[in-house]
């Protein structure tokens, strides 16, 4: 079995995996980071989105071995020193989540959007969420939350 070393949420993690082990399996099963979810098997729902070396990606559509040496941030790594990330805080404030299952992917995707687009419009946000499916919220409050979260990130220089 190959050994992979991946920096996850700032911590170097080494594990023996199979070649077929997906990144999401590495996170959930090897590291116990169960915040990253699996909601489909066709790479469409986005519940598994994480950040890899600065961009968002679907951890269900990557092999752990592909990510050797990379920096991965998951939903568990977003809050710092017990303080929610501005995007997490915006989701809470604007009721951008209900059952919470799509939420980690939504938040990780939203953080990436706010990184590439400091002031996204409602249309930008709705278009960006093409790869994140939510069945609970009707997206209304997610859109509101992302707008507010992006503004907060821009203010905070993130």
């Amino acid at each position, binding site marked *: 079995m190959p050994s992979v070393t991946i920096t996850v949420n700032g911590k170097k993690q080494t594990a023996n995996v199979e070649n*077929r082990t997906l990144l999401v399996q590495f996170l*959930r099963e090897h590291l116990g*980071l*169960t*915040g*990253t*979810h*699996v*909601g*489909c*098997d*066709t790479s*469409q*729902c986005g*519940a598994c989105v994480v950040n890899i070396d600065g961009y968002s990606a679907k951890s269900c559509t990557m092999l752990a071995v592909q990510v050797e040496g990379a920096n991965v941030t*998951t*939903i*568990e790594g*977003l*809050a710092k020193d017990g303080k*929610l990330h501005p995007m*997490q805080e915006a*989701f*809470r*404030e604007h*009721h951008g*989540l*209900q*059952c*919470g*299952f*799509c*939420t*980690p992917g939504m*938040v990780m995707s939203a953080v990436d959007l706010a990184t590439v687009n400091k002031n996204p419009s*409602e249309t930008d*946000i*709705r*278009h960006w*969420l*093409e790869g*994140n*499916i*939510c*069945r*609970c*919220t*009707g*997206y*209304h*409050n*997610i*859109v*509101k939350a992302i707008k507010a979260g992006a503004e907060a990130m821009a203010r905070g220089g993130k």
Partner: protein
Amino acid sequence: MSAPIGAPVRRKEDHRFLTGRGTYTDDINRPGQLHAVFVRSPHAHAEIVRVEASAAKSAPGVVAIYSSADLVAAGLGTLPCGWAVKSKDGSPMAEPPHPVLAQGRVRHVGDPVAIVIAESRDQAQEASERVVVDYRPLPSVSAVDEAVKPGKPLVYDSVPGNICYDWHIGEQAPVDAAIAKAAHVVRLDIVNNRLIPNAMEPRAYIGEFDRGTGDYTLYTTCQNPHAIRLLMGAFVLHLPEHKLRVVAPDVGGGFGSKIYHYAEEAAVTWAAGQLGRPVKWVAERSESFVSDAQGRDHVTHAELALDKDGKFLALKVATLANLGGYISTFAPAVPTYLYATLLAGTYTTPAIYAEVKGVFTHTVPVDAYRGAGRPEASYLIERIVDQAARALKLDPAELRRRNFIATTAYPYQTPVALAYDSGDYFTTLDMALKDADYAGFEQRRAAAGRQGKLRGLGMASYIEACGVAPSAVAGALGARAGLYEVAAVRVNPTGSVTVLTGTHSHGQGHETTFAQLVSERLGMPVENIDVVHGDTARIPFGMGTYGSRSLPVGGSALVKALDKVVNKGKKIAAHLLEAAEADIEFKDGKFTVTGTDRAKAFGEIAFAAYVPHNYPLDELEPGLDEAAFYDPKNFTFPSGTHVCEVEIDQDTGEVRIVAFTAADDFGRIVNPMIVEGQVHGGLAQGIGQALLEECRYDRASGQLLTGSYMDYCMPRADNLPSFKVATHGTMCTHNPLGVKGCGEAGAIGAPGAVMNAVLDALAPLGITHIDMPASPEKIWRAMASRRTAKAA
């Protein structure tokens, strides 16, 4: 800070979800756990000739493989049905057994045939491919209107015509008479498209067996753990309740699909007992598509009789309802007691007759999905009312007003059994029209026309019945369960409160809403209140969450339990304050002797209850821990008007929603932020049904054509607008909170509003009806055929 009723309190549960620290079933792993994979039928209908598992059994990591023969040998029962419907002639519905694993025949693509259990999921998967099942394929039927035709394949040899039941409600003769002599009769043939619920968390189960105590535990993605304990324990595994614990931890959405007792739950729990090790199964999404109960699927003919002024005289409805290949847990009730009893809608229609045939087909079982019967009723009524407005050349809002039940008419007895307790359809209609700028619509239509777009506006004035009740009435109608709810308020010695509720939250925010009820009543901050649900070992009992019942029924139980806490607190306070109990009042978290400043804080009373050194032990037990059961006196009746405005691209047939406005009556509102969120979510599912979603089977083969998100169209953010939502509450008269429930309203009102808007846009072309979903090609074809007709 106390967080009273009416405050938009931010949700207590959000922190764990936002930081990735929720605990969903698939996040749980038990020591020594095995993994299960099901072998499923690739055929819609086939005879199982042979299941040969010897090669698979020797595959690496395999621990056991079971098929139906093993379960039969072990004496397992079949999956029970919780609601029996009687046919017109009084005969019971056909109730063929629903085995845990298919016996002799498979009846839909995805029907489980065997369970393969191995050390790892990959091993179970690989071994499952080596299980050889010889099938003799048989002809199948998947469409409900096909299945009832003579000579079609039978799902059960014992059920002629595939008719599970042939049920009716209302009186036919007066309806026929009214239709025969009415000034106007509007007729409509309409399909309510089959949907797949698609909660984002796929179903997942872990069965566990304690060899020491003989106790079983099931971790399950369900909406009602006590019901699963009863159904699985009593009917399938023959385990008494005290030896079976059911835990539903964080659950990622349900929408009805996680109410039912599923075969996989029983299989993993039983297997855990056989093997003495935990057995885990997690559905892949493609499995969810062929094994989660599906929703809707009606084919209906309806006739509405009106007098010359547009007053409704009678409504006659004939519906074929697809039940699928087996009867799911509550399936028979959905197209009968949850559908036809709502056919009065918000109107005074004096005579209504409906007949409903429940029909077996070779498809995945159909059961309640968000709204369950009520969206079908509301869609039918609101479409035919719009057709009538068009036929009589009346403003659709005006026609509705002419027929609304007067605000002074409550309680109002409909001709289809239900008695509405309160409502005000005029106000919500006016609010919605104002917020949607109805007055300015024709100008917008003209402006859109200049851009080459067809613009339309549609409305729906829906009503729903929530919190199925009372138990005795439901029982008389065939329910095999009680429909009360249970709450316990455990005041801890230092004054914090643990609420145990038999409802279950899988997105609805009960941990916050229920805490607000306690906060308001006991005058304490929500931080000091924990709401616990989803574990039969912790919660006394409960019926779970469905049908927008949690607050009207579960909240009412909580109010009753709080009453008991306060009453006992008064007794303790009277003793401590040396006053008569009748002189103690409780307000703002303090027990006070009326008219004095002598008072004891709630926390002091709690402490005294648990440390009873100065306490009336002769008359009163120590402790402050009260439970209550609440059986509702009636359904609740949320209502409202939804208005949708659309634009249609004439070149492609694409529909874009440009505005959506909702004005709803949910009675009293505890947390307006959560209520709005519930409405938004319901609207998205209703709009999804109208424009995007359709579960389709190949008519010839019974194969599911929409078996993944590649083909089943889930609403995305860019399909939807931001919504305008408002509320106007008339209080429910028979529950202590005046609440009505809000979880399903969006999915009930939206389909009618959207389709009426689409057809309003297409009206200038002479198009009068399109079935959902109004896909681009359907609209393009309708437009093209009208243009061809006009040109000819």
